[in-house]
């Protein structure tokens, strides 16, 4: 190439190298400002978007105003647009839009902002605390009773109305993990839950980084896609959901399997998946894909060993109900949320809601998808991508869809070369956000 041609080609590149970091910086500021707006306004309390809670963010009170749907949805939309721009921009590493340090600072700042604020958008964390206090303070089995059995406990008033009579659906490992927090005051336990979610999120991101690097993918981009995701930050971390612990276990298992032929590590990976499933059962979806892909005894031995250990611990701590995962899953599978795609499709076809026959059809659809993915994995398809598809299919076919459920496939999607998985996951998240927009379009005074 001649010097003249080189200079013509390098000019646009030099220009893009100038504007790309500036644009990325502006988008990062929008993300931070939107998160701060939600947290500061949320700290003012008296909002339908902030669950009734002990005052844990009182020191932020007075800075913001009561969080209304309009402000929240505008902030959420701004976050989504900024996130989409940042993800698209950083996809092209040659633009140098964001450095490793800047990405870590952005994600760290988002985490600190949300950690410092009140619980956002969900009462689930109070159910976690209630189950812990039932076991520790009241000697009740949380697999047999709902929080309604401790009406005089200080946490009871904060538990969501729909969950007051519902026994825990989480695995025995999670319940035991939460028990030490049951010894503390509700406020201290709440901080403990927030800290657990924060540590789990950081763990998930570190493991995502490691997996991406091991697979020769851009780790900076990978952690940005996960750690700056508005649903991950606002709903997942903001609500201190235990899904983050499950995701950390999931990425731990994936990390153990990448680039190794060690039987010990493969057994450890399978055991980690089972341990994750004893926190929240969904992650068990990865196990068949790992086993079909590896076709070695080690993962089976690891999974069975951990299952036996978990069953033993669960049985010793909670009796037969502590290991009866199937009943809990069957019960929860019958729930219907207005945000589920099943409910939306039912409305599209003029039906008032989801009927039992629809549940059966969705289950059949899910089984067919999983069988297809297993067949593909058998033929050599990337088991991590197949697992991601399975988790996405579970959330899309579930009649009980919540924002943090569509986070499940995200860390897997960024550590595989299967681009369709990431596009599909982000598209589903986008549709979820669009579905929240009604109060913005038609506010009710």
């Amino acid at each position, binding site marked *: 190439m001649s010097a003249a041609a080189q200079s013509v080609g390098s000019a646009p590149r030099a220009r893009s190298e100038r504007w790309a970091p500036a644009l990325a910086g502006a988008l990062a500021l929008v993300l931070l400002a939107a998160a701060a707006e939600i947290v500061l306004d949320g700290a003012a309390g008296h909002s339908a978007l902030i669950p009734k809670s002990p005052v844990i963010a009182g020191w932020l009170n007075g800075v913001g105003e009561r969080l209304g749907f309009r402000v929240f949805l505008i902030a959420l939309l701004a976050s989504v647009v900024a996130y989409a721009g940042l993800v698209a921009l950083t996809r092209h590493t040659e633009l140098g839009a964001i450095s490793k340090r800047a990405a870590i600072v952005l994600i760290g700042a988002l985490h600190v902002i949300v950690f410092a604020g009140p619980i956002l958008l969900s009462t689930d964390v109070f159910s976690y605390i209630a189950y812990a206090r039932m076991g520790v303070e009241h000697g009740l089995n949380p697999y047999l009773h709902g929080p309604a059995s401790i009406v005089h406990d200080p946490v009871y008033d904060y538990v969501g109305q729909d969950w007051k009579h519902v026994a825990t659906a989480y695995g025995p490992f999670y319940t035991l993990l939460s028990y030490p927090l049951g010894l503390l005051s509700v406020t201290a336990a709440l901080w403990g839950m927030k800290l657990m979610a924060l540590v789990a999120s950081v763990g998930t991101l570190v493991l995502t980084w490691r997996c991406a690097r091991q697979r020769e993918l851009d780790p900076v981009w990978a952690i940005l896609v996960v750690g700056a995701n508005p649903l991950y930050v606002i709903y997942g971390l903001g609500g201190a959901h235990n899904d983050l612990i499950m995701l950390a276990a999931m990425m731990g298992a994936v990390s153990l399997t990448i680039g190794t032929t060690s039987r010990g590590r493969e057994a450890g990976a399978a055991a980690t998946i089972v341990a994750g499933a004893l926190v929240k059962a969904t992650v068990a979806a990865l196990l068949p894909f790992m086993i079909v892909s590896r076709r070695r005894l080690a993962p089976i031995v690891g999974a069975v060993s951990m299952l036996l250990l978990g069953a033993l611990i669960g049985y010793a701590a909670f009796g037969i109900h502590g290991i009866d995962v199937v009943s809990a899953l069957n019960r929860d599978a019958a729930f219907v949320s207005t945000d589920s*795609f099943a409910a939306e499709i039912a409305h599209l076809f003029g039906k008032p809601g989801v009927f039992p026959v629809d549940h059966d059809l969705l289950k059949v659809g899910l089984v067919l998808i999983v069988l297809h993915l297993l067949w593909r994995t058998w*033929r*050599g398809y990337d088991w991590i991508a197949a697992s991601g598809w399975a988790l996405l299919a579970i959330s899309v076919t579930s009649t009980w869809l919540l924002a943090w459920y569509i986070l499940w496939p995200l860390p897997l999607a960024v550590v595989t070369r299967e681009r369709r998985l990431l596009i599909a996951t982000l598209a589903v998240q986008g549709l979820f956000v669009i579905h929240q927009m009604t109060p913005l379009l038609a506010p*009710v005074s």
Partner: protein
Amino acid sequence: MSVEQASRPSAFGERLPEWLRAREVELPGLGTMRLVETMVLVVVGLLLAIATIDDVVLQTHVNHRLVADLSTWRSHTGHDYKNVGVEQDIYGHTTRDTVCGNTKPGPPKERTQICLQMTGPVVGGRREVHGGWYLPAKSDDLRTVRYGCFGAAIAEGRCPR
């Protein structure tokens, strides 16, 4: 389709017949499969997108009606109460909604209530009242406890007598 490296077979894996062993690369011949998968994904994505937007439009209409219903009840009764109960047809089969609230100031449902039945489009932020009835204090809107039906509610037999 991405092709990821699988681990080398172990001693156990080496004893397996060739067709059962773990694969380092995905078997060839899946070009059409990828196309079919992508088409299915696009179709499912379109269905989900249409269902989502349809639901948002439906909810938006319901909210518009709700605002108009509340405004209409307040202007008809002359009471600017906040706690007014609305029963809507949220699935859009009809536009008939019922709004009930106290006839005198007091906690929700603690006084005699007046219910108004509204139908038709929102015009100027209000809807047309076609009829209604009264309910005793501390009562839910059940047909057995309604009395004093007026307007179209009489012909429709909304009250027990």
